[in-house]
């Protein structure tokens, strides 16, 4: 595994609040990094990874504040980061706002698209709400007779 991919995974863990195991378990991590590179360019992706690397250490209470100010509040990185979170949760790349493309340039045809059929199926949103994607990963005949399985909340602490 390349260190760039490792960095992308670490950033994704922090942004989605899902574990590394969960993210790799979607089978889509490499394709999402490639999608990000394609849609915003490798340099912007690298800038995002570098911004995370420059944050205060994870145990520092200042870190969560810094994510807000230097990443989510950053003109270049904020919209990209939000698009990445949505990508992980829905399997869909959402077109960046026009203000972003006007300022930083349109790299590719600005479009909203589902990355692949399995990206829809593996969207983290389904796991987060304890449901299965409509039309896929069915929970089995008669399963509706049993109470839903609500997943445990991730271990969020007071920093958030």
């Amino acid at each position, binding site marked *: *595994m390349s260190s760039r991919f490792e960095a992308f995974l670490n950033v994704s863990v922090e942004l989605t609040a899902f*574990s*590394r*195991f*969960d993210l*790799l*378990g*979607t*089978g889509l991590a490499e394709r999402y990094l490639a999608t990000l590179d394609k849609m915003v360019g490798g340099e912007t992706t690298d800038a995002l990874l570098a911004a995370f690397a420059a944050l205060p250490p994870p145990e520092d209470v200042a870190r969560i504040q810094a994510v807000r100010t230097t990443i989510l509040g950053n003109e270049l990185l904020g919209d990209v980061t939000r698009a990445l979170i949505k990508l992980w949760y829905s399997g869909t790349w959402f077109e960046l706002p026009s203000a972003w493309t006007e300022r930083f340039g349109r790299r590719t045809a600005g479009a909203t698209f589902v990355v*692949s*059929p*399995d990206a829809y*199926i593996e969207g983290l949103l389904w796991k987060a709400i304890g449901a299965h994607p409509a039309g896929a*990963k*069915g*929970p*089995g*005949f*008669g*399963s509706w*007779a*049993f109470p839903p399985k609500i997943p445990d909340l991730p*271990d969020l602490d007071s920093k958030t």
Partner: protein
Amino acid sequence: MYSYSIRTLDELKEFLYQAMRLEHATIPPYLTALYSIKPGVNQDATQVLRVIVVEEMLHLTIAANILNAIGGTPDLTRPDFAVDYPASLPDGETDFKVGIQAFGREALATFLKIERPAQRPIHLVGKGLIHRKTSPHTTALGNDPRHEDLHFYSIGEFYSTIAEGIKYLEAEAHRVGTTIFTGDRSRQITSEYYYSGGGELFAVTDLKSALEATELIIEQGEGDGGGIYDDNEHELAHYYRFDELVKGRYYQKGDQPGHPTGPQLQVDWEGAYPIKANLKVVDIDIKKDPELREAATAFNTRYGEFLQLLTRAYNGQPTLLLEAVPIMFEFRNMILELIRNPLTNHPGKNGCPTYEIPGSTKQAAVTRQAEVRA
């Protein structure tokens, strides 16, 4: 010469327990290979494996029905029930290992051996069981439960011995005005409890239904008397379904074994995740892959609960089988995640379920590592 015929009811019960164990032992290898296939490829192989794994579940339940019919007690929680992979299965005069591995040529070669037609070559007809010493560290299946070193020529032969035993014991019982079919009818699993289960599930209550049950298992696996179809010509036997994948061609009516002439089919031999064969929980680095290790352990725990549930279902609570359905779909999701996660200590290899069931004696104790979660 040692007679391997079944002569007492207790022996028949033990043979049927071993039959359940054997049927179950084929499920993890098929299931893992099925879920190792990457999305979007190998649709033919996916379909074949799915049908076969569901039929193996049917066979497990049929064996439980026969055991229940003669007043036995199916127990999937016995310490030796779940096998330690790779396990040894009979392959004529030698044996072979069946293990947990990704879909591919090697897996298919193994699957063909599991389902291989039963007939002995001429020079072995009437020669008795095959003598073979299995390493004490390997689980051996398809042997005579009374003699660990004596193996049946094939799974089909193992079942034929059961069928002969049933006939013999029922005839003996008849002579004194009784029957071996004394089991509680309410313990029988029928299709109403068994959704879309790969065939009709009927109650075993007498000699006729018991022999139909053993026939069904043999025919779905190996074909009817060496033919490629089952007795009603409806369904291709498992062996020939796998053979289609190897040969890249479908069978059609009238074809001879080994020579399919139907439409071609595509198999992408690289279209599976590279899982590490016969992985054990202890092989997963607890420091580098703590979440993967925890997930593998959680799967085993859940699988153990599943076997407990099936045991209760087969012991008078058939409606519990309906609860087993969502658990099996839960397994699919758990297995997919394990298979897509790389193993740090084995570069290029991914994780997989280990099927080390808690409570099984042959497996090393595994401690839960929930507290290691980052």
